[in-house]
């Protein structure tokens, strides 16, 4: 009983720490992409650790199942959402006034898409614009 409580409380404390770091990073980092990095990775890990703490402290079959479903769903959707926002913020940076940190020294997407492809994109939804060019 005591070991179970200690492990559960430790997991909950670690998850809280990661969530706090995510909030701090979103407030303090200078750039959309860095904020995305802080929010996605630290936020997902923090919520997953909190869920593990709940499953350890209140062991039941229903709790285990729902906790596993929540963590699995989170690990499945968080990278997709982050990728979509990052991609949209990159392609719409002129329209949305997205600025980049002044210390940035390389833009790998610029090498891949080339100048002409980005300028003369046809009227599609943009899903094939970056993957087609090698």
């Amino acid at each position, binding site marked *: 009983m005591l070991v179970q409580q200690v492990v559960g409380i430790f997991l909950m404390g670690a998850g809280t720490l990661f*969530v706090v770091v995510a*909030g701090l990073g979103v407030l303090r980092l200078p750039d959309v992409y860095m904020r995305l990095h802080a929010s996605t990775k630290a936020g*997902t890990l923090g919520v997953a650790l909190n869920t593990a703490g709940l499953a350890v402290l209140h062991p039941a079959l229903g709790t285990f199942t729902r906790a596993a479903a929540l963590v699995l769903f989170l690990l499945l959707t968080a990278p997709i959402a982050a990728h979509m926002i990052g*991609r949209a*913020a990159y*392609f719409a940076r002129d329209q949305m006034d997205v600025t980049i940190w002044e210390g940035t020294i390389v833009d790998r997407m610029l090498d891949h898409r080339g100048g002409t492809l980005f300028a003369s994109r046809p009227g*599609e*939804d943009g899903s094939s614009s970056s993957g087609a060019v090698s």
Partner: protein
Amino acid sequence: MAALSGPAAWFASVCLVAVGVSLVLTVIRLMRGPSLPDRVVSLDLVAYQAIALMLIYAILTGEPAYLDVSLVLALVAFLGTVAFARYIEYRSLPEAAQSSE
């Protein structure tokens, strides 16, 4: 499903307050964010922090029913983020493509 008591409950309350403080930090970024993608990112994190808040409260009170609520909130937050990302990317298209679609 017993509620926590003693030092464990005290620590859980401290965790609750810490996540609340980080929620306030994220809302500051949400209001201040210079561009729309900044606001979408912080809104996503606000949903995660609400989930963390509910999970810690579920640990504190011994009510695993909050787990269902956080599952639904994760689903809705993902859908909202995807919708915003689609909207932002749609705005990046040329004007002619926007009107024809």
